[in-house]
Every structure is written in structure tokens, then in C-alpha cells.
């Protein structure tokens, strides 16, 4: 079991390495996409400068907390899209019958598929997250927990995307639904929890789990609380489990490229 996990990890890292090599074939484009992504993310500062000029807090957050919120939003997005880019077009992979190549390999199908590509601009998102967390004031403890939250939040993003994509096993053209919800979670992630009312907040801790990606982590980074940290840990484990369950449940319905062929 342990050696199998170790081998799986080795292969996933190898895939990521090869995909990174591919992205770096053109160095100028590679570097530019990272730098521009950082600039792109930085424009939000203008938005919040204006909001804070109108009011002392936005949704109960101080400017410093907004920085943390953004650090988490952009960092988790970066982790998810860099290491697991395929999660965000898994829907197409399923409907076009492109899972075949991973199924015939003696490894975990989902992990093989997810790690087969990277998004180089996501490096910019990750870097940006770290830049902001440094700007917001850093201690070693904060840095360590921030890094852990990035990984956990990245996993939640990916698991959420996999659950959405798994619907493609049953429903054709559900890729639009997946795209819509994936971009929604990214957007909501950048707004403070306090602007939302009660029912919406319930949704944000369940159906659209932004709460565990950034709201709880912002709390923990502001004033440390071990229980909140454990909640995030537990939720991450739960949603990953759910993602695997949904994917493997759907896989039995997988129709490879046959539906495509018979459509012609």
C-alpha cells in the first residue's frame, strides 16, 4: 500500500515535470505569462482601495485581512491549476473519450489524468499569493499554516472540479455547468464573507465551499484556532473522498469515444 502510494507520487511528479518542460519550450512566453498573471491579479488592489475609501471595513474585513483573502484565493487557485490543470477540463476529457490512455495504465486513473498537464501562468498565481501574505505581515507560524491552507484549498478546488466534471459521465454537455461553477467559486473567493447573509453563508460552507478555501483560513491566520484548522482538514478529506467516489461511480458509465462516433 505504502510503496504503491510512493510510486504513484513519483509518477505524478514525473508527469508534472514533463508538462513543465513542455511549457518551458518557449522561455519568453513562459516567463511573460507568469509576470502578467501577477500584474493581472494586482489590479484588485485598486478595487479595494476604493471600497476602503468609502468605509472602514468591507464585509467586516480590514485591509490586511483582504490581503490575506486574496493571497488565499489566488494561491489556492494557483496550486489547483498548476498541479492539476486537467481537473478544469476533465469534462471535455470524459466526453471526448480521452480517458482511455489513463485507464490502460496500472496507476490511479484520476490522478494520472489530473497530473498530465500544468498551467504555467498558475505559477504567477502562487507567487502572488506568497507576495501578498508577506505584505500582510508574516511570522514563521503564519507562513507554515498559509502554505498548508494553500495545499488544502487547492485540493478543495480540484475536488470540486472533479465532482462537477464527473457529471459528464451521465449528462452530455455538462462542461458548461462545470465551467460556470468553477469560475463562480473563484470569483466568490475574492469577496469577504461578511457581505453575505445567513442562507448564502450556509451555501458557502456546503455547496460552494468557499468558506473552507478562504474564510476559515483567514480567521485562523488572523487569530489561531486549532479547531477551525481541524474543520478545514476534515472538510478537505471529505470532499476529496466524495470526488473519488463520484469519479469512479461515473467511470462505470464511461463510453470512451463511442458516443462521438455514433453521433456522426
Amino acid at each position, binding site marked *: 500500500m505504502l510503496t504503491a502510494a510512493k*510510486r504513484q507520487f*513519483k*509518477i505524478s511528479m*514525473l508527469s508534472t515535470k*514533463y508538462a513543465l*518542460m*513542455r511549457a518551458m*519550450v518557449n522561455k519568453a512566453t513562459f516567463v511573460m505569462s507568469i509576470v502578467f498573471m501577477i500584474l493581472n491579479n494586482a489590479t484588485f488592489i485598486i478595487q479595494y482601495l476604493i471600497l476602503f475609501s468609502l468605509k472602514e471595513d468591507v464585509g467586516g474585513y480590514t485591509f490586511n485581512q483582504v490581503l490575506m483573502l486574496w493571497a488565499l484565493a489566488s494561491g489556492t487557485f494557483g496550486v489547483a491549476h498548476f498541479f492539476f490543470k486537467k481537473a478544469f477540463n476533465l469534462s471535455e476529457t470524459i466526453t471526448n473519450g*480521452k*480517458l*482511455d*490512455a489513463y*485507464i*490502460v*495504465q*496500472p*496507476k490511479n486513473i484520476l490522478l494520472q489524468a489530473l497530473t498530465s498537464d500544468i498551467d504555467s501562468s498558475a505559477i504567477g498565481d502562487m507567487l502572488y499569493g506568497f507576495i501578498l501574505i508577506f505584505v500582510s505581515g508574516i511570522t514563521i507560524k503564519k507562513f507554515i499554516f498559509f502554505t498548508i491552507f494553500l495545499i488544502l484549498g487547492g485540493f478543495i478546488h480540484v475536488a470540486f472540479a472533479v465532482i462537477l466534471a464527473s457529471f459528464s459521465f451521465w449528462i*452530455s454537455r455538462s462542461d458548461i455547468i462545470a465551467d460556470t461553477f468553477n469560475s463562480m467559486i473563484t470569483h466568490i473567493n475574492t469577496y469577504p464573507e461578511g457581505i453575505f447573509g445567513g442562507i448564502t453563508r450556509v451555501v458557502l460552507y456546503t455547496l460552494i465551499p468557499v468558506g473552507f478555501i478562504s474564510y476559515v483560513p483567514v480567521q485562523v491566520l488572523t487569530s489561531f484556532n486549532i479547531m477551525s484548522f481541524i474543520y478545514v482538514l476534515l472538510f478537505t478529506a471529505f470532499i476529496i473522498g466524495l470526488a473519488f467516489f463520484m469519479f469512479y461511480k461515473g467511470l*462505470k*458509465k*464511461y*463510453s*470512451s*469515444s*463511442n*458516443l462521438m*462516433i*455514433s*453521433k456522426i
Partner: protein
Amino acid sequence: MSIIKAQNLNKSFKVKIKEKGILGSLKSIVRPKYEVIKAVDNISFEVNEGEMIAFIGPNGAGKSTTIKMLTCILYPDSGEISVLGMDPTKDRKKLAYEIGTVFGQKEQLWMHLTPYDNLKFFGAIYDIEDKEIEKRIEHLKEVFELEKFINIPVRNLSLGQRIRCEIAASLIHEPKVLFLDEPTIGLDPVVKDSVRKLIKKMNKEFGTTVFFTSHDVSDIEKLCKRVIIINNGKIVLDDSMANLKYNYLNKKIVEVKLKEKIDFENVKGIEVIKSNNNNLKLEIDTRTTTLADVLKLIDDENIIDINISNTPLEDIISSIYKEGAK
């Protein structure tokens, strides 16, 4: 000993049908209509160890669906499969170590890497030790003549070189069975021929059982001792190549150009297919009459040109298809 066993396999797909026009698409949102297509209809067969078997049929016959069920990609609706004594739906990972796959229309290789790096990658996927990988790459390099381009990125290779690498990569873990789905599709005749030779060589060299699909008749003529023909999801023929030839190649075609016309109507064992002035095309049933007898009927000096040939395999198969369709 049978290495692949399939019993009463069934697989059907539900396909959404859409009517034309705006109204049609609105209708299909509200109440989608489905059509069930039986891709594989109750088929059973066995393959023995070391055998080289071709699964042939026209497009949409169910070849790919079958091969995908054997390689764990698709779950059958019903029926039983056993490959190397394992059930693909249950022992996917374990089985994956023992089989190799090549899908002609889909690339499994990393395009920006060299064949060498690709082989290393696939070796790692199958948990082979580095030293052992090197040894196997060396061997594959020899057998598949990869020497010249082993260090050139795959995307810069010709189609023929690429398919050779695909096959080599699928053999890195020395699989006991190799599945090839349309390995010769889209290749030019020269490359096709070299791929065929490779498959043959591999079967001999490694003792690999080879199961491959094709809609190219010449593939089986050159490669196989046994053929399974599938059409509309059903097996229409499962026979040795020799039997196929004996049963369906019992006819000869004689095309002859004469100075003076001879009447062959009503001669036993001869059927006139075409008669155009002095040009005749005859089909001779070699079970009732011999070629020599037929030639005796024609005076040597009367012949301007003569050509004797077998019935093309393509026609034979299409006639089996027609029988199957009945």
C-alpha cells in the same frame, strides 16, 4: 491454453437524437429522445496463448468497443471477460501490468519529449527499475530500429516513426498480450507494411499474444492465422485463415481477350460475369471443374490476352457481411 475469453458480451450506447431546427433543439431540451445502439451484440470467442488474431469489420461494427472492453476501458452491459485469468472490470490495475495497448488514432506519447524519455516514462509507470528500463530500451531500440531518431522529440518524427515508437512504448513492460486498435489507420502503404512486419516480429521475438482490429483487409491477409469478422455487433465468422481461403477462395477469375467469341453459357462450373464483344470475364468454381479443363475449351491461337486471379479478399468479406446481414 486460452488467454482471452469472452462470453456473451453485450454493450449498447444510448444516443440522444436531435430534431432539426430551433423547435427541434428546444424540444430536445425539454424531452430528449434517445436511441439505443447495440455496439456489441452477444459475442463470444477465445484466443490462445501466442496467437495472432485479427478482429476485422467495417467502421462502426463493434471492433473498438470489444477491444475497449477487453482492456478495461469500457464496462460491458452483460457477459463475462477473462484476460490472463483476470476480470478487467475488477482487476484493472493488476491486468494493466500484463497487457499493452496501442490505439492508432490516439497518441499516448509525450510529443515534446524524445522517444528515449518517453520509454523511460512508461517504464516508470510500470514500476520497472531504472537499470532494467535501460536494458529493455536497448533491446527495443534494436528490434524496432529506433536508433536514428531515439533522441529527437516525437513531434518532429514522421508518422511511421511515431507509430513505431508507440508500439515500442507499449512493450516496455513486456506485456503478455498486446492489443492494437487500428494500428495501421491513416498510414501510407509503405509504412503500413513496415508496421505489419513489426507486429509479426514482435509476436515471434517476444512470444506476445497479439489481438488487433482493422478494417483493412490486407492487414489480416499478411499477418494472421486466424480471423474474427464482426459486423453490426455480431460475429459473422471466426475461422482460420486457411479455412477462410478454402471456403471462400474456391473461385478463380479468368479474364480473357479472344479473337473469336466462344459461348461459355451453360458450361458446368463456369459463370460468365461480363461479356463485352470478345472480352470475357469468367468465374470458375474449382470444386466442379478445374482450370485446366476450362483452358482446354479455348484454342491457344484464339487467345490475345489472358489473366487468371483469385477472388479479392475484400469481395469475400463483403459477401460474408451480406450473409451476416441476412
